[in-house]
């Protein structure tokens, strides 16, 4: 069967706005980075072609390895806390009644606060001199100072991220739970299922899709996190909380090493892309198999 199509080359003009838009917000910036990543730049817009030198340098740099390790540790930690915690909170939220909207609004609040404000709030909140949290912990007899001690800085950073983003997991998990028809719970009751069995065989499988999305979003977001740790600790004390993005900005804007910074950006970008792809493929394949 053939479809009658009108051939009119002026139709190309219709796609032009999209092309222009994509070019400006994606292609051109990305190609600029690619351009920098293969050249040495000097003052006065003088460039020399360097090939893969910056990529090799970045990949062999101990500084990059350390930042990457910190990044992986951070992402793994917050995922390990936020996903179970989010599911746990969603399970305890009411399924109907006036408290539903109250809970939802309370849960959504942290998500509505601008990221740098979150950083600023926690910075002040955790200050050992007059911050509520800092004073309280010290008041308990535990020495705590996130601006001096690397462990304390990490603790504060993780706590801040958990406070800021667990809500997202809660809301997604809650949506998944609400989509389960009541008959499943009734059938489970009749089958004599324990609370754990209900969770394991009904709630968890039914939440699978939304949890895939939650993990994916948190994985990518936490891997690219910049504003909050920048405002909270600025990467310190020392380099202890210098995550990949913070390190990148230090190289690009602090030291003005455009070449290595560009190479690092590309490696960073490919890592996020690859991780998301692998994760998504694994989860969806699992889905298709069961």
């Amino acid at each position: 069967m053939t479809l009658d199509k009108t051939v009119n080359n002026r139709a190309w003009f219709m796609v032009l706005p999209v092309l222009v838009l994509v070019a400006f917000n994606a292609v051109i910036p990305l190609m600029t980075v690619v351009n920098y990543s293969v050249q040495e730049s000097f003052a006065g817009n003088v460039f020399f072609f360097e090939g893969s030198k910056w990529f090799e340098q970045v990949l062999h740099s101990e500084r990059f390895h350390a930042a990457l390790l910190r990044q992986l540790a951070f992402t793994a930690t917050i995922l390990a806390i936020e996903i179970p915690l989010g599911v746990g909170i969603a399970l305890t939220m009411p399924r109907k009644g006036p408290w539903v909207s109250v809970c939802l609004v309370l849960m959504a609040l942290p998500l509505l606060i601008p990221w740098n404000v979150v950083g600023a709030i926690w910075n002040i909140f955790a200050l050992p001199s007059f911050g509520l949290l800092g004073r309280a912990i010290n008041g308990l007899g535990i020495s705590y100072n996130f601006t001096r001690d690397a462990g304390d800085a990490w603790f504060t950073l993780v706590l801040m991220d958990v406070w800021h983003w667990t809500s997202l997991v809660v809301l997604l998990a809650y949506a998944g739970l609400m989509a389960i028809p009541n008959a499943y719970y009734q059938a489970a009751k009749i089958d004599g299922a324990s609370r754990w069995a209900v969770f394991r065989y009904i709630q968890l499988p039914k939440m699978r899709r939304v949890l895939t999305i939650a993990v994916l979003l948190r994985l990518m977001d936490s891997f690219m996190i910049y504003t909050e740790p920048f405002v909270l600790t600025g990467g310190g004390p020392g380099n202890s909380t210098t995550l990949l993005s913070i390190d990148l900005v230090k190289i690009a804007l602090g030291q003005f090493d455009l070449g290595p910074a560009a190479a690092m950006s590309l490696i960073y970008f490919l890592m996020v892309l690859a991780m998301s792809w692998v994760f998504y493929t694994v989860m969806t394949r699992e889905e298709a198999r069961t």
Partner: protein
Amino acid sequence: MARIELASLAHAYGPRPRGDADYALKTINLEFKPGGAYALLGPSGCGKTTLLNLISGLLVPTEGSVLFDGTDVTEQTSEQRNIAQVFQFPVVYDTMTVYENLAFPLRNRGVARQALDLRVREIAEMLGLTPSLMQKARRLTADAKQKISLGRGLVRADVSAMLFDEPLTVIDPQLKWELRSQLKQLHRQVGTTMIYVTHDQTEALTFADTVIVMYDGRILQVGSPQELFERPHHTFVGYFIGSPGMNILHASVEGRTATVAGRAIPLPRAYDRLADRARVELGIRPEFVRIAPQGEGVPVRINRIDDVGRFKIARVSLDGQALSVMVGEDTQLSGDSAAIEFDRAHLHVYADGQLVDGKA
């Protein structure tokens, strides 16, 4: 198996019911004999699912009590009552195989592995699920899933009763027939008390020995399919059961004579004077109305004739009141008027919707 009694049972979903209107189920008394096949029949929203959930223990009644073999179980959970229930939408545990699904209720009750295996395979055989026993349950069709739900009830040999809440709603029409007859067969095989909720009279009448017709939170009649057909206790029962439903005519009744639109119609029984204000109606099934030979009967106007295959249904009006008449395939009707006559033995008198007993 248990004898189930409902004593002055009533249920309201709201917290503080005041008037009759707040009750989804108005006070009822009912008994289910062990091993019986029952159907709760009524239109949507009549309280039949509420009643079922009260029996199974998914709901706790506002008033009254539920007794199993004379023991009050009103406060007990479904598990304690040992009830099995199949829902409108098939419930299967997605991540489990068919085998694991069937084994689930037994595992939860700590049944030994060997006894469990034997029982699961027996039930799978009974339901024709053996070939797909090791498949993931979520891959199966709706009817197979519904069989699994049914199977999870059947594996427990000692259940007090099996309850069905419109279990064939999502099943394809041709498979509905098959499952329905399979269900009837299963009932004979296992002999468990079964209570089946439906708004489909065919399902109710083919499955059950005793049908409970409900309307607006009340029970209108409890009886065998034949009783419901021959002697509906309420005009709603007459109208709801049968296809087409019973003809209801406004009338006045005195002694052995009813008067409809100025015409006297002889009745099979004698009636005392009915209360003055009561709405008096005459009921007769379309099966017992005939086209009268020329020169006899009550004249009617023919509005429409529906040919439904083995017979025709003539939609006629008698002085503005609509009636359906079953007409044989070979009866010829011409023009827009005819005369009808009633099979006297099957005329019933209703006052305010309720059947009035006459004297022979």
